[in-house]
């Protein structure tokens, strides 16, 4: 499953997508994100599955443009170098902007 967390408002698209089939539940993104955007949650999409998944915290998903701002190109980062993208070994995290 592709989980898109974030929003679109008048100023643009701000989504972090997590491929839950790739996510191995390691929690590295939770540790590496300087803004504390991620959390590990129970997989509510599959009641047969007991593993945890990475997700974007609900309050953070409403202000991603601001929360992720310090890591974005204006601050000298390339998308592939974002702390969360780099931390994710299975390559499950992507940003829309």
């Amino acid at each position, binding site marked *: 499953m592709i989980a898109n967390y974030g929003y679109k*408002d008048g100023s643009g698209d701000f989504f972090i997508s997590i491929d839950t089939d790739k996510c191995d539940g390691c929690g590295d993104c939770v540790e590496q994100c300087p803004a504390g955007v991620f959390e590990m949650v129970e997989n509510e999409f599959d009641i047969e599955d007991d593993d945890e998944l990475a997700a974007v915290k609900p309050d953070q998903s409403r202000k991603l443009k601001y929360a992720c701002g310090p890591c974005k190109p204006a601050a000298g980062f390339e998308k592939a170098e974002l702390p969360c993208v780099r931390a994710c070994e299975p390559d499950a995290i992507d940003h829309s902007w």
Partner: protein
Amino acid sequence: MITAGVDCGAKNVKVVILKNGEVAGKAMVQAGMDAAESAETAYAAALKEAGLVPEDVQKVVATGAGKNEPGFKDDTVTEVGADARGMHLLHPDVRTVIDIGCEEGRAIKIDAAGKVVDFAINEKCAAGAGAFTEAMARALEVPLEEFGKLSLESTQAIPMNAQCAVFAESEVVTLVHRKTPKPDMARAIHDAIADRITSMVRRVGIEEKIALTGGVAKNVGFVKSLREDLETDLVIASDPDFTGAIGAACVATDS
């Protein structure tokens, strides 16, 4: 040399007449249905204050969202360019300009010569602009002029979850039901917008001195929240409504 700067904002039209680098006249009128007409009115008032007639003015430069509207303009300049130029004239030691207008918020980094190095804009979303505080003041039935002061009487910080002005209104209604004191709600609202503005400023990087301009700079409650959030001192533009218009008049002088 005599020049004029016109700032056609979403809410007000501001005109400044600059005579040899000094403000000779200025006027602000509400942007009505017809922006071109409002600009004419403001221009006439500013000229009257300066004791001048249109023929005395060598060049008119317009800026702001409606910069293409005034029929009497000779040229236009971007809002970012006008802000930077105006701030440099008023406060030459400022390196970071924060301009919060009714419908737009901007953070601009300028160099020692007043040139724009980098900028970030928050537009098309009321949550990061003055319209947010206006909507909230209306929801709380507090006049906008008193809304800022009210915030200073707050005794506790309460978080606001909504990032949208419309949702924030519903949240405020819930807080009212819970009998939250008005000053605390006012502060929560100012803290929320200050938080968004700070993130925007961090994107361009904070370099001192930092100045605040735009209509929202007159709101003491917001200024306090922003100061606390930025953890640094803040220069408040001497006449925050007119920074853009002054900048536009300077641009007219330069060319």
